[in-house]
């Protein structure tokens, strides 16, 4: 029977996934959650050690004399400045300066990089590599990946790894050995907490999983699905392709496209870097003229929401997970934007959202109203524009 792929961890994850809520991710099945409610999984990310199968992430190895030149050309970061062992988060744009995708670039050695992406990008990379001395290989189906997130992850890794990870800095990577298996460990993640991502050959996947589960038992290690991760990433102010923005390659109309500035990625756009990069001219112009939109954080005013619910005799009703539905944002009675993901934050005890607002409403502190549905009626809860991320523990970078 034709079907999507399962990851190399499936033998373990399929036995653990109680609700059998498999989700499609880039042609793979992954567990939505392992338990029927998300609470314990969410709190494992924030308080212990969450083990998340992120194998479906697209992974490319870019190798050769011109590898750096290719990534310098394609991404918005200054790749020439990158040191071996360093990782950059970056977006990449079309020539109109609109986002195609985003991911991380890791410099594995002088002429070898690994790029992760949400969507297939082999064609885009190949097109941009015309005339360059570079090999691009899609290793998505050969390299398994685990995201290991939470404040206890360092202790667990120190127990199972041949070399301690204490010195591994934020957005750096190292090679290491777990149970005799060679792995790459990067200090990265999609939760905004202390965390690592472990990259290994498919054939070694179960060995690494088992070693981590065993060593982590005393530290609250918990297999976590992508639904709990979705809540954590909203708190961390991290957006998702196809949910919070539309790739230019998917967009039907211009209005659906976003620039990195509009997504709050100003810090990743190195306009001072030497030479051409795709989208440079458009991004320079946008920098000069300012952006029409901006992605910001929204905090819904709890008291205001309580009042609206009180009118029908209810306490506020908030879904216990991230909601990927577009919600209109108003100032007065005029729509000035929309929230693309909203979520209850179990840690902050707040209803938060990633929102896209038009100039000038994206300034921090702007008072807006967000649509909520109260007993089948449309209502508007007061909310305020806040700085992202919503939550950033001091141990994230330390």
């Amino acid at each position, binding site marked *: 029977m034709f079907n*999507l792929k399962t990851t190399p961890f499936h033998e373990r994850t399929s036995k653990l996934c109680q609700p059998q809520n498999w989700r499609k991710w880039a042609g793979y099945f992954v567990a939505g959650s392992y338990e029927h409610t998300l609470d314990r999984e969410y709190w494992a990310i924030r308080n212990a050690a969450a083990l998340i199968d992120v194998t479906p992430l697209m992974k490319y190895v870019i190798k050769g004399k011109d590898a750096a030149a290719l990534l310098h050309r394609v991404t918005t970061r200054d790749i020439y400045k990158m040191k071996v062992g360093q990782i950059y988060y970056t977006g990449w744009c079309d020539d109109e300066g609109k986002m195609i995708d985003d991911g991380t670039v890791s410099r594995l050695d002088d002429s070898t990089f690994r790029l992760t992406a949400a969507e*297939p990008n082999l064609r885009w990379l190949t097109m941009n590599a015309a005339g360059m001395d570079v090999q691009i290989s899609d290793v998505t189906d050969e390299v398994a990946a685990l995201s290991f997130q939470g404040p206890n992850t360092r202790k667990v890794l120190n127990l199972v790894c041949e070399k301690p990870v204490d010195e591994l800095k934020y957005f750096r990577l190292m090679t290491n050995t777990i149970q005799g298996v060679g792995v790459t460990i990067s200090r990265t993640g999609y939760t905004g907490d202390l965390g690592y991502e472990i990259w290994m050959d498919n054939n070694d996947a179960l060995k690494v999983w088992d070693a981590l589960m065993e060593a982590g038992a005393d530290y609250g290690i918990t297999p976590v699905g992508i639904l709990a991760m979705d809540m954590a990433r909203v708190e961390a102010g991290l957006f998702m392709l196809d949910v919070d923005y539309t790739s230019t390659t998917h967009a*039907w109309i211009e209005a659906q496209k976003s620039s990195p500035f509009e997504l709050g990625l100003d810090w990743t756009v190195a306009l001072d870097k030497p030479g051409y990069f795709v989208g440079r001219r458009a991004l320079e112009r946008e920098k000069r003229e300012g952006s029409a939109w901006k992605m910001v954080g929204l905090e819904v005013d709890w008291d205001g929401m309580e009042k609206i619910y009180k009118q029908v005799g209810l306490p506020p009703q908030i879904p216990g997970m991230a909601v990927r539905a577009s919600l209109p944002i108003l100032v007065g009675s005029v729509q000035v934007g929309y929230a693309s993901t909203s979520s209850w934050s179990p840690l902050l005890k707040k209803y938060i959202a990633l929102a896209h607002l038009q100039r000038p409403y994206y300034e921090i502190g702007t008072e807006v109203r967000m649509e909520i549905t109260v007993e089948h009626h449309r209502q508007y809860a007061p909310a305020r524009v806040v700085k992202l991320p919503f939550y950033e523990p001091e141990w994230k970078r330390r």
Partner: protein
Amino acid sequence: MISSNTYDAIIIGGGHNGLVAAAYLARAGKKVVVLERRHIVGGAAVTEEIFPGYKFTEFSYVVSLLRPEIIRDLELPKHGLKILPLPSTFTPMDNGDYLASWDDHDLTRREIYRHSPLDAEAYDEYSRVMARAAKAIKPIINLIPPDPSSLHPRDLFNLLKLGQYAASLSEKELYMIAKLVTQSSADLLEEWFETDALKGTKAASGIIGTFLGPRSPGTAYVLLHHYMGEIDGAFRAWGFAKGGSGGVSGAIANAARALGVEIRVNSPVKQVKVKSDPSTGSGQARVTGVVLENGDEIDSKVVMSAADPKRTFLQFVEPKHFPDEFVTAIQNFRVRGSSGKVNIALSRLPRFTALPDEPALYRGAVSISPSIDYIERAYDDAKYGQISRRPYLDMIFPSMIDPDMAPPGQHVLSCFVQYAPYDVEGGWTDEKRNQLGEAVISTIEQYAPDIRECIVGMQVISPKDIESIAGITGGNIFHGELLLHQIFFLRPVPQWADFRTPLKGYYFGASGAHPGGGVMGAAGMLAAKEILKDGF
């Protein structure tokens, strides 16, 4: 006593366009009669039981372009229309492998990835580019084509609308459209893909119903034409009508009858009655009705032909009633039939060697199109009057989609075959027909060696048979090739693409009119709307 044989409008031809037009006119309160030559309605959209128990969707076999507004306006579901999904396409390859695509994006990407990672991505992008181009061109389909040389207010208004629309397209979209209307499908596809079976399968849809090969310029547009069905996204792409294409005609006929349309079968029209109009004083001719082959006369001030352009303008009406140039243009209209149909009754499903355990793919299309060269070679044979030795085949098992098409456990196979030239060397004889059937069976045999063991009965339809049975001159499935010089304001004839004709009261609303063929119904609907605008 005149009243019984006097109507507000007469529709010649009970194919789907004729029925659609009739239904729309009746819906506007008109008294309408449809005159069908055969004993059943449907034209080329008919289902017939040639072998007892096996229902053949004889000519047209899939639905992609039937306008959703027609389905809504005429309440076709209430009258029995169900369009069932055709969820996949499967192309067996010469190396024993296969290439498949599904309506699920992730599955399709995984499958193409197996053959070429670059093609897997290009496929996504290509689909979007084509869908965007189709979206850009779609408004044109529903616009009555303006005559760019006319100063008539209606033409000017439509031309203005078209101009405004063109101006609303981005530069990129305009370039894309310019390329699509000038390129060959092979050139277009070679810009995108490297997998032969993928290019072959895509290219095939650029040559269907034309007498061109994938390397002939202009075929890229035909490819786009076939994409039109896909832009409604979830509102549905390709499908198979319950009961076959006859199910579509049946539903439209039921809807038309419910609206008061009278449908007369076995009523071939001999001639459209014409007389000089004394009211104009200038001697301009106008229609007054029709004469049937049996001599019966039916009167009406409005006659719409849903037959092909040649019959409509060269047979039903004496050419003297039209300007010379018009007659010449119709004579030059290209209606070269290039395809045939082989319908097979099967005792069981054949086994494709490339698909050991995959019954799911039998529910979709099977395309014999291993490469562009394969199809171009098939065309080479046809160019010089031969039946393709190894033809392009587009096959479906209707009984796998609608189990009522064959006796339980048994099956029917519908094979669209190209190329089978209308002007085959020596003419179409039984021997030639057998040759066509044999070319199809031996081609299938390459991929499903047990096909012969399963055959219970077989019907071979040549372009000549399409002409004699369905009544389409030249046997072209689109009533005239969808070539660039025969579309839009040039279809069927420049200046007369708005469903009117030089003969007052005589209208033309079939596949040979804008916007062209496929079980689309648009020509019938648009013609009816124009007739109503003229008031009568």
